[in-house]
């Protein structure tokens, strides 16, 4: 397919960048997942830690020095409840 300059310009305009914060959050997924795996592995090995997580996930994570953002909390709830 061939385009003239005006059509190319229109197609360039059609894809503005996504908000930077969204892109960065998605790019951080691998390291976030590794952190999540660590917490889950520890919860499986340490019954007392697991009980603290089940009782109050957010505070238990904070007490252990983790940043309990919404995505981490949601992912952990799924993994621990599952």
């Amino acid at each position, binding site marked *: 397919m061939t385009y*003239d*300059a005006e059509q190319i310009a229109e197609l360039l*305009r059609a*894809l503005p*960048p996504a908000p930077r914060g*969204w892109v960065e*959050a*998605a790019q951080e997924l691998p390291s976030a997942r590794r952190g999540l795996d660590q917490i889950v592995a520890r919860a499986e090995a340490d019954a007392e830690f697991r009980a603290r997580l089940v009782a109050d996930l957010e505070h238990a994570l904070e007490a252990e020095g983790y940043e309990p953002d919404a995505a981490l909390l949601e992912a952990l709830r799924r993994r621990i409840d599952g």
Partner: protein
Amino acid sequence: MTIVTEPASDAALVARCRAGEDEAWRELVERFSRYVYAIAVQAFRLPEHDAEDVFQEVFARTYERLESLRDDAAIRPWLGQLTRRLCIDCLRGEAREEPVEEPEPPNAEQIVERLDEALDVHHALDRLSGDCREVLDRFFARDESYRTIGDALDIPPGTIASRISRCLEKLKAELVGRTEPVHASGKR
């Protein structure tokens, strides 16, 4: 002389992601972030907070399912379909609270087709030299003024119009003769 590095193919990028290369994952998100975002806000007209949820869910599922992807080269139509499905789920969720006949906007399909074309053009842009890439992206996609572009790239604002025109010609030449990829709509 400007040396332009050909970007990795989608299949090569997916293979590197699967091998656990964080840098490849960053590149994959960068490559498709505009497309996923545009499908959510332009084709399905999701408000920003819903669009953000869909955007993050698309990449989370993609990351989780890289192992089971049947064709690495088909990551683009796969991402397009996943984004559309999650947008429809989101609209159906809202429709449960406030029932509507058909949650999907009537022209969503045509808009996605157009976004597929736009992504082809953006990928062709990635194959141009850095200065052309920057000036065209800033002017058209980021809607920056000559002055802002001039300040950012340290070039006289008076030369920007001619650069844009020259770079558009290069992009046009780049688009000619390229094999067209399979789109989310399944069309070529």
